[in-house]
C-alpha cells in the first residue's frame, strides 16, 4: 500500500514535470495585472462538429513564453507599438494630416476595432483587413503613399491599433455581405495544398495539441496577431503566418495581401470568435 502510494506520488511529480516542460493549459492570462483574457471558451456555432471548445495559441505555449505576454514591460512587441505611436502622431502626405488629426487618441478611437476585423466595407463593396483600411486612410485622407502590406511600419500600426481592444472578444461578422468571402476562406482552410497535401484543418483542427516533431500544434487561432515570434524575433502578421504554413506544405503560396488570404483571415478569425483579442501577443 505504501509502495503503491509512493508510486502514485511519483506519477504526480512526473506529470507535473511534464506539464511544466510543455504548456500550462489551465493557466490564466492576465496582462499587467488588469486585463483578463478569455483563452478558452465555447466554440462559435459554425464550428459545430469540429470543436466544442476553442483555445488561444497562448494555452499551447511554455510557461516561459506565456509569461512574456503577461507584462507589457516584458513583451517584446511593445517596442513596435511605441514606434507606431510616433507615426500615429506624425503628419504625412499632401493633406497635412496625421492619423491623430482625424482619429484623436488610439485609446479613444480604436477601442473595439481590432475585434471586428476583417470587416465588410459598404462603400468599397469588399471585406477589408486592418491593413487595407490603414492604406485607404493613407491614400485618400492623408494623400500619402500606401505602405507595403507586409512592411514593418504596417505591422507596427496594426499592433498599436490592437492595444485598446485587448481583452475584448473577437467578434467578426460572417453573415450578410461578408458571407461569400467567408465561404471562400472556409474552402481554402479545408483544401489540401502542395506536395505534402496538407490543409490548415489537417494540423490545426484534427491534430491540435499533438507534437509534430518538436512543434506543439495549436488550434491556429489569430486572436493574438500580430504576433511577436521568438523564432524570428519580430512581429508577424496573419498573412505572413499563412504564407509560412502553406509554404511548408511544399505548395505555391498565395501572396501577402491577396484576396485569398483576406478571405482566409476572415474565416480563421471567425473560428476564434469569443476569444479575447491578445494582440500583440508572444509566441514561439
Amino acid at each position, binding site marked *: 500500500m505504501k509502495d503503491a502510494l509512493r508510486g502514485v506520488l511519483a506519477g504526480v511529480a512526473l506529470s507535473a514535470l511534464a506539464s511544466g516542460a510543455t504548456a500550462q493549459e489551465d493557466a490564466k492570462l492576465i496582462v499587467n495585472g488588469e486585463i483578463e483574457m478569455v483563452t478558452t471558451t465555447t466554440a462559435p456555432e459554425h464550428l459545430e462538429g469540429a470543436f466544442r471548445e476553442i483555445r488561444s495559441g497562448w494555452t499551447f505555449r511554455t510557461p516561459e513564453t506565456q509569461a512574456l505576454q503577461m507584462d507589457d514591460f516584458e513583451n517584446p512587441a511593445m517596442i513596435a507599438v511605441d514606434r507606431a505611436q510616433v507615426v500615429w502622431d506624425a503628419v504625412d502626405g499632401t493633406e497635412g494630416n496625421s492619423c491623430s488629426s482625424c482619429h484623436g487618441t488610439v485609446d479613444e478611437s480604436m477601442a473595439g476595432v481590432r475585434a471586428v476585423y476583417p470587416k465588410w466595407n459598404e462603400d468599397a463593396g469588399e471585406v477589408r483587413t486592418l491593413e487595407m483600411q490603414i492604406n485607404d486612410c493613407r491614400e485618400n485622407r492623408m494623400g500619402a503613399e500606401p505602405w507595403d502590406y507586409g512592411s514593418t511600419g504596417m505591422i507596427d500600426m496594426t499592433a498599436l491599433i490592437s492595444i485598446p481592444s485587448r481583452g475584448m472578444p473577437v467578434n467578426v461578422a460572417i453573415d450578410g455581405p461578408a458571407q461569400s468571402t467567408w465561404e471562400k476562406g472556409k474552402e481554402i482552410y479545408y483544401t489540401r495544398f502542395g506536395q*505534402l497535401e496538407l490543409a490548415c484543418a489537417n494540423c490545426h483542427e484534427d*491534430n491540435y495539441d*499533438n*507534437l*509534430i516533431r*518538436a512543434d506543439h500544434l495549436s488550434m491556429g487561432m489569430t486572436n493574438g496577431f500580430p504576433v511577436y515570434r521568438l523564432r524570428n524575433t519580430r512581429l508577424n502578421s496573419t498573412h505572413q503566418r499563412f504564407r509560412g504554413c502553406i*509554404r511548408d506544405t511544399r505548395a505555391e*503560396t498565395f501572396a501577402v495581401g491577396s484576396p485569398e488570404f483576406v478571405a482566409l483571415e476572415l474565416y480563421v478569425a471567425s473560428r476564434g470568435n469569443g476569444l479575447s483579442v491578445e494582440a500583440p501577443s508572444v509566441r514561439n
Partner: protein
Amino acid sequence: MRNLTTAIAAFLLAGSAYAEPVAPSDVVFEDGAIPVSLTGTPGDPVAGREVMIARGLGNCVACHTAEAYADVPFHGEVGPPLDFVGERWTEAELRGIIADAKMMFDGTIMPSFYKNAGYIRPGNAFTGKAAEGELPPLLSAQQVEDVVAYLMTIK
C-alpha cells in the same frame, strides 16, 4: 528468333536489378498494398532508417514515434507509433502505405511519398514558389524499398 526473344525477356526479368523502377503513375495497388517491389533490388534497412529520421528525406519521425529509433530526438505524435510495425503489417502493405497511404486510409493526413501528380498548387520544394514542370516523388523508388526493409526489422 522467337527463342532468342524469350531468352532476352527471361534475362531482363532475372536481371531486374538493372531494370527501371516502376514509375509513380504505373504503381498497381491491391487493397492499398503494393505486392511487387518498386525496383527489384532488396531494400537496405540501414539506408531506410536514415530516410526515416532525416528532415530532408522522409522525416517520418516528425509524426511517428518508436522505441527502435529512441536515440533520435523529438518524435511527433500525429501518426500512430511504429513499434512492432514489422509484425502488424506485411511488406506489401507497408510499401503501399509509404507510397500512397491514402489508398489504404481514405483522407489520412499522411503525405504520399511515391506519387508525383494530382497536387493542388504544387510548389518548388519549400520556396513557396510554383513548381517548375513535373515534380519528382518525395522519395525515390529505392528509398521506399529501403524504408520498407527497415520497418520490417521493427518487431
